[in-house]
């Protein structure tokens, strides 16, 4: 414990790291306020830039982008009624009405304080829960990992966007994409069509830049010529004592909800904020204020979406299963930098892990300061015309993807997956399940193969392993849960 605290506090003593967190928080807030570019797209675009950094600095950059961009989405949600990120969608319900009443500063004050509390709370939970989970995961063998990855994939069914079946189809497609290239144990070439650039399979980064950044570019093209108008705001006000009395219970509740939702594989800040908002309304004495400018609604949504960030890091770092689209990119960052996600990370590289956690806490504090003192400036950035913004994103996407292995093939992969992602989204398929499936694909196949070897081809023996059986039961519940829940609510 003392070692962990030492490692976390060492962040403050590293001036370069401090400067990096400060600069990245600014970039993260800018990414969050720019329309369409959320934490996931931002992290995907910045990933190539982290390659020359040390592992701790690189992951700190990505984690800081994650927490600051998730918060910053609320700035535009308040001032131009356009959530900068999908996680801030629930914030618009009450923020904009409050802003229209001339209380934009108060709305932003409540949002920034709630986000900071949610973010710090979830990192504390991460510090406590991750090593505990790592101790359990330390004993996992291939059958347990196979069942766990199936559980992770089954959770795709409950992602809010798209619908269960479409998300599962996306997940299966992602797993198939992971089979492209030479099969690891036999070396047999699969779906390469004679192209030896694909021998080691598709790289994660270009696929992710394509799925998130390039497909978003095509989605944003529908909004070309759209002009946003901003609400004027004098200054950001901290909540008053009366406000705190009104919202503290909501913040505590949403911190718990957000962290729990974040920990569930494949769930993320968007789901957390929606549930945080709904629960805030359910427990409120002033239900009629919701949707008309309730500060409890703002606190409920904002503390939950930022609490989900730390929660989502738990399965990512301990089990190698991403908790959201952005943590999928952080997972890729860990792998690119030689930090193998999993329980061994907590025994072999524990100091690095706690430095990353310390940096996340610091990033939460920094965006509090920026939210309070520079929100007006950041809100202006959100009014950059998309006809200028997205061509710049295009340039960064193609150059960034090329730079990873100096191969034009990676650029073509960005274009192909951008187009696939766009058409998938056009027909109601989310791209996050494809990304999660792609990350988990190799894990599923390798652990299934190893399990079969362990049990001499008797696959049903997987079911005799208690933990594996538990994960498979959870996977079945994950698949059938939304259907059963839907039937029950319809009956009511």
């Amino acid at each position, binding site marked *: 414990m003392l070692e962990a605290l030492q490692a976390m506090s060492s962040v403050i003593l590293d001036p370069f790291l401090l400067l990096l967190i400060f600069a990245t928080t600014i970039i993260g807030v800018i990414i969050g306020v720019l329309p369409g570019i959320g934490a996931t797209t931002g992290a995907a675009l910045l990933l190539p*830039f982290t*390659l*020359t950094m040390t592992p701790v600095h690189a992951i700190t950059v990505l984690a800081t982008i994650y927490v600051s961009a998730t918060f910053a989405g609320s700035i535009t949600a308040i001032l131009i009624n356009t959530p900068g990120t999908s996680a801030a969608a629930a914030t618009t319900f009450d923020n904009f009405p409050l802003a229209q009443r001339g209380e934009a500063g108060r709305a932003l004050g409540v949002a920034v304080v709630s986000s900071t509390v949610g973010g710090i709370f979830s990192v504390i939970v991460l510090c406590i829960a991750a090593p505990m989970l790592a101790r359990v995961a330390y004993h996992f063998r291939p059958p347990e990992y196979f069942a766990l990855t199936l559980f992770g994939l089954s959770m795709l069914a409950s992602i809010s966007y798209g*619908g269960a*079946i*479409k998300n*599962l*189809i996306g997940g*299966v*497609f992602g*797993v*198939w994409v992971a*089979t492209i290239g030479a*099969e690891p*144990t*036999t070396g*047999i*070439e*699969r*779906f390469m069509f004679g192209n030896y650039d694909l021998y080691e399979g598709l790289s994660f980064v270009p696929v992710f830049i394509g799925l998130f950044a390039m497909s978003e*570019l*095509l989605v944003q*093209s*529908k909004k*070309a*010529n759209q002009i946003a108008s901003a609400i004027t705001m004098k200054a950001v006000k901290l909540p008053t004592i009366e406000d705190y009395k009104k919202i503290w219970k909501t913040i505590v509740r949403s911190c718990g909800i957000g962290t729990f939702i974040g920990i569930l594989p494949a769930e993320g800040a968007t789901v957390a904020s929606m549930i945080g908002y709904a629960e805030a309304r359910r427990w409120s004495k002033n239900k009629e204020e919701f949707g008309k400018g309730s500060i409890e609604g703002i606190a409920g949504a904002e503390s939950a979406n930022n609490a989900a960030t730390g929660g989502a890091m738990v399965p990512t770092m301990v089990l190698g299963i991403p908790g959201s689209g952005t943590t999928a990119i952080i997972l890729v960052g860990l792998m690119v930098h030689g930090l193998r996600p999993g329980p061994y990370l907590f025994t072999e590289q524990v100091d690095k892990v706690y430095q990353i956690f310390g940096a996340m806490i610091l990033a939460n504090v920094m965006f509090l300061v920026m939210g309070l003192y520079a929100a007006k400036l950041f809100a202006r950035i959100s009014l950059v*015309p*998309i*006809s*200028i913004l*997205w*061509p*710049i994103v*295009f*340039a*960064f996407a*193609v*150059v960034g993807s*090329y*730079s990873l292995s*100096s191969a*034009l093939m990676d*650029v*073509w992969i960005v*274009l192909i997956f*951008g*187009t696939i992602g*766009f058409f998938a989204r*056009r*027909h*109601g398929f989310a791209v996050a399940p494809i990304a999660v499936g792609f990350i988990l694909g190799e894990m599923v*196949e390798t652990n*299934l*193969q*190893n399990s*079969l*070897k362990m*049990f*001499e*081809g008797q696959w049903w023996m997987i079911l005799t392993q208690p933990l594996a059986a538990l994960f498979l039961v959870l996977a079945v519940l994950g698949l059938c849960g939304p259907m059963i829940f839907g039937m029950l609510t319809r009956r009511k």
Partner: protein
Amino acid sequence: MKTSDWIVPGVITVFSCVVIYLSLQLDLSPPMIVGHSMQPRAFPIFLMVINLILIGLLTYQFYKNPPASIPLEPFHTWGTIILLIVFYGLTVAADFFLAIAVVMFLMCILWGEKRIPVALSTALVTPFLIFVLFDQVLMIRFPRGIILDWYYG
């Protein structure tokens, strides 16, 4: 179900069948190497069978609750897709950074930027700054082309 509702299930079904066919063409690995595990072709086939089951469920869902019709994308979207193809052609035929600059300029105009000097300066300054950053700071060597041949010598 409308005819257009069959497009998504149809495309995914054809895709799944093609993958199964291609998987069946894969070489078999000797039993000594595979042991008690599975052949490399087995896993993709298994995935596509799951996909076909899911497509069956999706089609049933569409039959019960027909999806809302999707409006055709505006000209900007199709134009941007065409620009991506133009980018591919220009990169292969001319130069990577020239392709970026041309596509950026055309994208600015296509997306409604009426100020030509602004679009032009965005298309010229951004690739230049990105090139300097990647070439000088990150030490990345870019593919040769009309412009980079002149730069690299």
